[in-house]
């Protein structure tokens, strides 16, 4: 047990389960044809169905269903061939129908797992309880008028996947790792953009504490936490609050809480007594959702390679370390970039250029992999120039910096700057002669046994050739001359 709270009565363990709302990437909403584009002018992406006009009926969007199935498959989860939509009834101004269409008793996806990796390299498996499809609500704007609130229904009816974990998480760090891994998988699958700032991924956090070996105690749910860092902070704060209550002889009430990140504490949103009675019942406007196994199979066959599989393949195919492979697959665009560079080349050399010089350059120039000034093809060409001896590693650094600056082709840069490596042994010999002539004292020292000076001579020869000499040839020739 890695994370414990030291209380006055002993050690406490935390128990956490996460409910993640992930906005489905789709052109239109879950039950209407209205667009889902983020950032449209208020109420410009609203159909009569979304606004719940009289007599309007929902029709399921099959692309959203496909996205939920892909996600389920990506979470190694069971796909339920029959699922059902229920109505969750409550009144609010952002909920035009007066109910949310969701899946209560029979979700489209059943149990699955996510493997998470912790900072100490340990891996853990977190259970997924279920994934279901539901509608998002609209948005209320309270800051437009001193006395009125305004309603924007652009988001009303957009498809969400609610992904519920088992209460398997035992540390704030694990919650963070879980969310990062889930987001990574969703992004790989292209089913959710995972953008927590825009609200396209949000988490409800269930927290309880217990003494080791005890059954679960009462949990509290912290609603709508919108960053991974806040999730981790909220868990710490909430767990500490609960430990204090229990240790002071109190009892934790089951309730819904909010996390105030400016104060670093949670506070009551609504207590159990105020809990809504949602009066769930099957939506009579929709038939049960029945899937063909063939369709599920074809979606499965077309799934992209997921991070864990890609990482294992990179290790094997390119001979790189588990760690490096992990860095590369963290973002699919990086993995794709790397693979374009490494394919048919030296994979280890490629990883050192991508995670070293390239990442540094991106950082320095405030670019992302998508906007990189150096394309994967160019970097690959540069590695080819190293491999075929046109340039050496040192010159490559210079060429690369030029590529970052100009975006030019590496061959063009080499030609323009005359950086082609000197492989002419005559020229190298001439340089050696010049160096040895200038450094007769050092030569004497070397010959009297000061072997370490070899490096000095190499450096001087490279300098003489303006760094362009082939280092292997220099070594060979120098050794012959010094020992001659």
């Amino acid at each position, binding site marked *: 047990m890695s994370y414990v709270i030291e209380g006055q009565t002993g050690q406490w363990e935390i128990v956490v389960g996460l409910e993640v709302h992930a906005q489905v990437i789709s052109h239109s909403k879950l039950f209407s044809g209205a667009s889902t584009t983020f950032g449209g002018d208020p109420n410009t992406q609203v159909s*009569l169905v979304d*606004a*719940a*006009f*009289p*007599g*309007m*009926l*929902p*029709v*399921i969007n099959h692309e959203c269903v496909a996205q939920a199935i892909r996600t389920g498959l990506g979470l190694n989860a069971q796909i339920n061939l029959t699922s059902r939509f229920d*109505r969750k*009834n409550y*009144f*609010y*101004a952002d909920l*035009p*129908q*007066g*109910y949310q269409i969701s899946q209560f008793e029979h979700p489209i996806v059943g149990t699955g797992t996510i493997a998470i990796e912790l900072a100490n390299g340990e891996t853990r498996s977190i259970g997924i309880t279920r994934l279901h499809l539901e509608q998002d609500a609209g948005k209320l704007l309270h800051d437009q008028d001193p006395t009125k*609130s305004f*309603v924007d229904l652009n988001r009303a009816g957009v498809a969400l996947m609610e992904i519920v974990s088992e209460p398997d998480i035992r540390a704030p760090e694990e919650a963070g790792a879980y969310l990062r891994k889930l987001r990574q998988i969703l992004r790989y699958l292209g089913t959710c953009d995972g953008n927590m700032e825009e609200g396209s991924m949000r988490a409800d956090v269930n927290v309880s504490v217990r003494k080791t070996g005890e059954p679960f105690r009462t949990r509290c749910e912290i609603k709508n936490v919108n960053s991974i860092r806040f999730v981790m902070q909220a868990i710490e704060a909430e767990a500490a609050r609960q430990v204090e209550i229990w240790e002071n002889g109190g009892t934790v009430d089951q309730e819904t809480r909010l996390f105030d990140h400016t104060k670093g504490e949670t506070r009551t949103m609504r207590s159990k007594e105020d809990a809504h*009675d949602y*009066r*769930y*019942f099957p939506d*009579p*406007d*929709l*038939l049960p959702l029945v899937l063909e196994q063939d369709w599920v199979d074809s979606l499965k066959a077309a799934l992209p390679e997921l991070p864990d599989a890609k990482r294992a393949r990179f290790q094997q195919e390119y001979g790189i370390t588990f760690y490096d492979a992990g860095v590369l697959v963290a973002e699919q665009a990086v993995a794709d970039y790397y693979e374009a560079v490494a394919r048919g080349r030296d994979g280890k050399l490629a990883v050192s250029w991508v995670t070293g010089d390239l990442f540094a350059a991106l950082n320095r120039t405030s670019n992302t992999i998508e906007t990189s000034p150096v394309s994967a093809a160019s970097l690959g060409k540069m590695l080819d120039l190293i491999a075929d001896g046109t340039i050496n590693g040192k010159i490559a650094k210079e060429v690369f910096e030029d590529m970052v600056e100009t975006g030019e082709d590496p061959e063009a840069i080499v030609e323009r700057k005359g950086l082609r490596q000197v492989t002419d042994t005559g020229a190298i010999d001439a340089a050696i002669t010049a160096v040895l002539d200038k450094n007769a004292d050092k030569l004497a020292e070397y010959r009297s046994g000061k072997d370490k000076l070899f490096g000095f001579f190499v450096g001087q020869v490279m300098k003489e050739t303006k760094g362009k000499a082939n280092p292997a040839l220099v070594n060979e020739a120098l050794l012959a001359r010094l020992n001659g």
Partner: protein
Amino acid sequence: MLTGLTLTEARAGLAARSFSARELAKAHLDAIARLNPALNAYITVLPEETVLAQADAADARYAAGTAGLMDGLPIGIKDLFCTKDIRTTAASPILADFVPPYESTVTARLLKEGAVFLGKTNLDEFAMGSANTSSAFGATTSPWRRTDAPDVALVPGGSSGGSSAAVAAGLALAATGTDTGGSIRQPAAYCGIVGLKPTYGRCSRWGVIAYASSLDQAGPMTRSVTDAGLMLEAMAGFDERDSTSASRPVPAFHKAVGKSVKGLRVGIPTEYRAPGLPEDVLAMWEQGIAWLREAGCEVVDVSLPHTRYGLTSYYIIAPAECSSNLARYDGIRFGKRVDAPSLDAVYEASRAAGFGPEVRSRILMGTYVLSAGYYDAYYLKAQKVRTLIRRDFEQAFETVDVLLTPTAPSAAFAQGENQNDPVQMYLNDIFTVPASLAGIPGLSVPVGLNGAGLPLGLQVLGRHFDEETVLSVGGALEAAAGFAHRPTLHAGAGA
């Protein structure tokens, strides 16, 4: 008398150019102007120029030889169907000024077939009722009078009471209705017309204001069984905008009428011989059985053992769905809003002012039966009963082709009667509700008058999507009964 025709007769007359669609429409507008003040069958009558423009367009199509199935036929539309740019109220204060920017699928199909809309007919508020007394626009009065009490205003039945009264009195050649627990069949029976509730899924619900989504079904209310078939052809068909609509071809329903019923097996559900069923209703039922025997049907007793639970299950499921369906009337986006200091207060004030007592009571009942702790005992149990009732019918239809029952346990009653006894009021639906729960088609055919001179109807029930056999049997009853009675008030009566 142009207002006394059937759809079939009127269409033949139009095709033969015996009269124009304009003349036909004008005759109906005149009849409405004359009789609607007394009947209150229409909530909204369309402006004369609008109606006549539709009629002129129909005349042009007849001239061009491109007339549709319903071309030039003036009809009433129950005010539960959303009609583009025409106020659609559901007879509720909350939608009193609502003008939909869209046309329901069913009315769009009727328009496509050339039908001429006269106006929007009255109904019980949100189609909740059996007497058409809960309308925010006032009750519809039946054009019929008891011979022994000619001054007593009677109900036209409900909820499609405006439609039944209009068709019976000659204020429309036909009208659309919707049936959730009997709202087409019972008012048809009370007003001496034909009413067909098709199989659930036959007509699209898109654009029809929902009462109870799993039960609501649109259908025709007409003067003949053939007309019902004809109009259903125009109304029915798959609609991708309604997930519960059936992807099936639409047969030429009207051709089923007149087909021989010889050899068909007709079941008589023994459980429907309820104690206390009035003699005149029983006698009419026996008469119907005799007529079908004469027509060559084989009549046998069948059992529908779960019938007695039908009404209670219905009055759990329908309010449950209605409590959720009507949540959208919150005063925020459309409809009546009563301003108040907080969001919850706006909801409370708008809905208190916007819903009448019957609607409020059903929302309350529905909310209750779905609540935590009661769901299993009420809603879930009612759904199980619904499954058993559907199975009862399926088993019966293994041995018989149709069932024959009375449509309602009595003839029309007086306005105000039963008003303070909701259970008695709900009993009106006892013979119609089970078919609604099962989703099977049901047809009410007027077959005679009771001792007080009021029409009585018999109901023919059939297998899922077998409206054709139902219409054949209905046609046989119609032919045998030769019902030609007219209500006391009708457009053809002397001024």
